[in-house]
């Protein structure tokens, strides 16, 4: 009997195989979702190495807890819930680390305010570089949940309902997070419009 190419197998079947101990099936799930997972983590951390570590940490958590996946939601939703929590946790860890570093040496602390308030614009590339840094800094100042709601909507294009499901919160709460994030970003980045 000819074997079905893994590309034609649905996530659900791969999950079922992974739950029976099929490592290859789980690796296929990783292959399918790694780019999206990486991009969410990158939007959140704005650092390539951190994004790689965060997305891989989420996959490892999914792997060790795959037996708990009951199929009530899609694998995608279940996995992104893990990823979102890993990212939010990373934010908390980063804040804690920053506070510790601040206590040790105030000079070494990196604050968003270190980015110049008035960007110089010798050419478009320089402005783009400035904008990227300012966006990163502006996102950094947002509370973690506002930031995640904004990233999932603005960068990943998830619907409000999907975001609510992923963040395990009410749709109304997501709308409030999104509105506050957009308002804060517009204030921070007004000079680039």
């Amino acid at each position, binding site marked *: 009997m000819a074997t079905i190419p893994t590309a034609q197998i649905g996530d659900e079947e791969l999950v079922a195989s992974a739950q029976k*101990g099929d490592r290859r099936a789980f690796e296929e799930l990783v292959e399918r979702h790694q780019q999206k997972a990486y*991009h969410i983590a990158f939007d959140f951390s704005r650092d390539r190495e951190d994004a790689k570590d965060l997305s891989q940490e989420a996959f*490892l958590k999914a792997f060790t807890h795959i037996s708990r996946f009951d199929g009530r939601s899609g694998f995608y939703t279940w996995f992104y819930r893990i990823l979102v929590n890993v990212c939010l946790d990373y934010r908390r860890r980063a804040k804690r680390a920053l506070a510790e570093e601040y206590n040790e040496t105030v000079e070494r602390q990196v604050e968003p305010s270190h980015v110049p308030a*008035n960007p110089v*614009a010798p050419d478009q590339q320089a402005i783009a570089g400035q904008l990227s840094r300012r*966006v*990163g800094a502006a996102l950094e100042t947002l509370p973690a949940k506002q930031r995640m709601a904004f990233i999932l909507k*603005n960068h990943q294009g998830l619907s409000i309902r999907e975001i609510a499901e992923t963040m395990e919160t009410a749709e109304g709460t997501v709308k409030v997070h999104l509105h506050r994030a*957009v308002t804060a970003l517009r204030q921070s*980045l007004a000079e680039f419009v």
Partner: protein
Amino acid sequence: MVARDKPALKACRNLEEDLVLYYYGELSESARGNCETHLKNCEACRASLAEMRSLLPMTAAHDEPAQAFWDDYSREMRRKLDAVTEREPWWQRFVGLVAPLPVPALATGAVLLLALALTFGKGLWQPSAPPPDDESFMEVLPIAEQLDFFSDMELLDNLDMLETLGGQGNGTV
């Protein structure tokens, strides 16, 4: 994209949140209709929407790593999965295997196992050799079990004796 000094016109306060949802296409049909009607007549809200359209797409970070990055990503991921698998204790792997099964299936399996064990495992559960102190008792036990036989034998002896006595009596009468 140019740096701008003059402040943007402020959108109507009661429509701020709806404008964000309108931008993202998340308003219901009726709310969208109301929003569009309002936008036709409100310059501040139109400017606010235009600002969002100009600014928000720029906030997305575009990081497209080369294929080498993804190859490395996959290799590293496999290594980490190996490490996790090696660390996992045997019982966790067992739980991982049975956990996805529905509870009734697990219960049926358990009952079947118990039934099989009771049927075929009886011999295995016989008590082993008794302790040396009981050896003398075990020697007496078969004799004790045959006491009835011995008592029957005694009764027969008594009958023989009665017959003999009776025969003698008959002979003398």
